[in-house]
C-alpha cells in the first residue's frame, strides 16, 4: 500500500509539472510575446554567428549591425531601452527551429524572404531591411572575371540550410555546368576551406561575400564577381500566430526607414516634435495615438529614433563606415533612386 502511495505521489507530481508547461503554451494566444517580453525585461533576438555589418559581436560581447539594430529598435519601443536585448547566435540550420520553438522572439539574421518559408514553416516575415542577391567570390589569380568563365568540374563552397544551395543548383543547371557543392554548417568553416584552396569559388549573398572577404587571410587576393544570380530580400522574421507582435516588429523597422525619409535623426528627433509637418509629428509621437493599437505608449517611435537612429544612420554606422559596402545600391530610399519604400505611419 505504502509502496503504491509513493509511486502515485511521484506520478501526480510529474503530471502537475507537465501541466504547468501546457498552461504556459496554451496561453500562446493574443500578444503573449509582448507580455512575456515586458515581464522578462529583455527582447530575445536570434542573430548570426558573426557577419560583419549585419550582426557581429566585438571582443567585449557587444553586438552591432543592421540586423542587430532591428532588435534594438523593438527593445526601445517595448521596453524603453535599446540595450535590453538578449542575442542568441544561430547557425543557418538552427535559426527557424529556434524561432518556432519559442527560444527567441525575433529572428533578425540576414534571412531571405521566400514563399515556402513564409507559408510553410510557421514563420511570418515582417519586412525587408536589406535588398541583396547571391554572388560568387573567386581568387584574383584565377583570372576569372565573370561567371561565364566557369567550367565543368568547378567546386563551390557554401553554407547548408540556405537559399544559396538552391540558387546555386538553378544557376549551374541552367548553364549546363557540372559542379561540386561543398556545404558546411558554419560560415567560418566555409571561409577557412575556401581560403585553403578547397574550392574554386565561394558563393553566398553578396553582402555576405563582402563582409566575409574582410575575414580572409589576404582580402586583396579575392574578388566578388559582378553577376547577381538571385533576389535575396533579407528581413526580420517572427513566429506565426501573434499578429500584434508581428506588427510591432514590422513598424519598428518601418519607423527607422520612414524617419530617414523625413530627415529625422537620433540627434534632431526631440526638436522634430514641434515640426509643422504632421507626418513628422506622428513619427516622433507628438500627434495621433500611434502606439495604442500595439498596447504601447505614444513615444515608442521617438525612442527608436533617439536610441537606435534612422535606417540611414544604421547603414552608415554598420555597413558603409566599416568599408563593407560603401555604396547603398538598392538599399537607398525610393526618393533617392533606391527601392526602400515603406507604408506611411498614420
Amino acid at each position, binding site marked *: 500500500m505504502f509502496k*503504491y502511495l509513493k509511486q502515485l505521489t511521484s*506520478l501526480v507530481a*510529474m*503530471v502537475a509539472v*507537465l501541466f504547468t*508547461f*501546457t498552461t504556459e*503554451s*496554451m496561453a*500562446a*494566444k493574443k500578444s503573449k510575446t509582448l507580455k512575456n517580453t515586458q515581464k522578462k525585461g529583455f527582447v530575445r533576438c536570434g542573430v548570426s554567428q558573426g557577419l560583419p555589418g549585419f550582426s557581429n559581436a566585438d571582443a567585449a560581447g557587444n553586438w552591432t549591425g543592421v540586423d542587430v539594430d532591428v532588435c534594438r529598435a523593438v527593445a526601445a519601443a517595448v521596453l524603453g531601452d535599446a540595450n535590453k536585448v538578449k542575442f542568441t547566435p544561430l547557425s*543557418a*540550420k538552427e535559426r*527557424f*527551429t529556434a524561432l*518556432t520553438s519559442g527560444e527567441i522572439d525575433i529572428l533578425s539574421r540576414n534571412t531571405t524572404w521566400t514563399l*515556402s*518559408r513564409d507559408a*510553410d*514553416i*510557421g514563420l511570418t516575415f515582417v519586412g525587408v531591411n536589406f535588398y541583396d542577391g547571391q554572388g560568387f567570390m*573567386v*581568387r584574383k*589569380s*584565377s*583570372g*576569372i572575371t565573370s561567371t561565364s*568563365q*566557369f*567550367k565543368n*568540374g*568547378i*567546386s563551390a*563552397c557554401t553554407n*547548408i*540550410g*540556405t537559399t544559396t*544551395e*538552391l540558387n*546555386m*543548383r538553378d544557376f549551374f*543547371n541552367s548553364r549546363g555546368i557540372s*559542379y*561540386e*557543392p*561543398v*556545404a*558546411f*554548417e*558554419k560560415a567560418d*568553416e566555409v571561409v*577557412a*576551406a575556401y581560403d*585553403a*584552396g*578547397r574550392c*574554386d569559388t565561394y558563393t553566398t549573398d553578396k553582402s555576405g561575400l563582402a563582409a566575409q572577404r574582410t575575414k580572409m587571410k589576404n582580402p586583396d587576393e579575392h574578388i566578388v564577381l559582378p553577376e547577381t544570380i538571385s533576389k535575396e530580400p533579407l528581413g526580420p522574421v517572427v*513566429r*506565426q*500566430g501573434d499578429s500584434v507582435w508581428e506588427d510591432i516588429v514590422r513598424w519598428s523597422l518601418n519607423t527607422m526607414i520612414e524617419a530617414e525619409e523625413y530627415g529625422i535623426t537620433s540627434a534632431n528627433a526631440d526638436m522634430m516634435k514641434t515640426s509643422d509637418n504632421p507626418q513628422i509629428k506622428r513619427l516622433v509621437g507628438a500627434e495621433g495615438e500611434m502606439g495604442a493599437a500595439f498596447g504601447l505608449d505614444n513615444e515608442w517611435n521617438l525612442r527608436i529614433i533617439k536610441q537606435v537612429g534612422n535606417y540611414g544612420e544604421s547603414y552608415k554606422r554598420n555597413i558603409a563606415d566599416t568599408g563593407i559596402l560603401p555604396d547603398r545600391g538598392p538599399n537607398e530610399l525610393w526618393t533617392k533612386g533606391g527601392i526602400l519604400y515603406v507604408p506611411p505611419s498614420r
Partner: protein
Amino acid sequence: MTVVAVVLVFGFFTYNAQVNMENRGIDFGYGFLSQESSFDVQFSLIEYDGSHSYFRAYLVGLLNTILVSVIGIFLATILGVLVGIARLSPNYLINKFAAFYVEFFRNIPLLLQIFFWYFAALRALPLPQDAEAMFGISFLTIKGLFVPAFIWENFNIFFYSIVAAIVAIIVIRAHAKKVQETQGKQTPVLLISIGLIFILPLLSFLIGGVRLSFEVPVLKQLATTSFIYEGGVSLPPELIALALSLSLYTATFIAECVRAGIQGVGKGQKEAAASIGLTQNQVLKLVVMPQALRIIIPPTTNQYLNLTKNSSLAAAIAYPDLVLVFAGTALMQTGKAIEIVSITMFTYLSLSISISLFMNWYNNKIAITEK
C-alpha cells in the same frame, strides 16, 4: 505503473507539440519525402541530383554514413589489433610507442581531431596542379584523392569465378574438417584456398575473355590557377579526413580491448597447450585467441557503435552524411523538424541495433559451448 507514466508522458508531449504546431500553422506529415529536393549533394553512392525526391536524399545521406562507418570500423579494427598486440610486445620501443599512441589519441576530443585532419592536414596538401603522382596514376590533392577507375569487360565472368572459388574453399574446408575428425589427417587448407582464389580469377582472364583497363585521372584547367582532375574515381578530402580521424580515435579503444583480452587468458592455458605438443601458432590459434575473443568482442561492439554514432560529426567538415544532408539541408528546406529528426533518430537506432545484433550473433558463435 511505470508503463502508465511513460504513456502519459509521451501522450502529453505529443499533445503539446500538436497544440503548439496548430497555433503556429505548421502541418505535420511525411508527404514531403516524395517531393523534389532541389538541392545537390557533393558526394553520393547512388545516382542523385536535385530533381530526385527528399527520400532519395535521405538514402544518399544514409549510404554515406554507412560508407564512412564501414571504412572507419575496418581501419580501426586492423589498427586496433596491431596496436593492442604491440602494447604487449617485449620490445621497449614498440611497446612504448603503442602506449603513447593510445594515450595521445584517446584523450583528445574527437571533434578537434576531425578539425585537425581536415583543416591542418588539408592546408598541407598540394593544389591539383602541384601534386606529385603516386605510382604514376594517383593524385592526393587538396581537392581530394584521385585514383584510376577500373573499366571491366565481361565483368560477370570474373565475378562468377570469384564466387566459384569461395564456394570451392568452403567445400574443401568442410571436407578437411571431416577428414581430420575421422582419420586424424591434416590438410593444408590455407595453401589450397590461396591457390584457388588466385587461380580461378586468373583463368577467367586467360580463357574467359575478361579484360581490365584503367582510366587514369587527367589534369584539367578550369582557370589560370584553378585545376581539377577528370576521369577516374575521386574521393573527397572530407571523407578521407573523417574516416582517418574516426579510425585513429576508435582504434585506441579497440587496442585496449585487444590487450585486455589477450592478457585475460591465463598463463596456465598456454603452458598446458604447449605441454601437449602444440606448436606456437597452434597455441595462439586454438587456445589463446578463442578465449581472448570472448573477452574482446563485447567491448569492441560498443566501440563500433560509438564510431557509427560519432560519424554524425561529419556535418562540421561538409561530409554529406545523414545528419548534414537530411537533418541539415532537407530539414531547412522543408521546415519539417519533428518528422526529420524522428526519422534520423530512428535510423541511427536501427543502425546501432543491427550492429549489436550482428556482434551478439558472432559473440554467441565463438562462446564456449558447454558439452
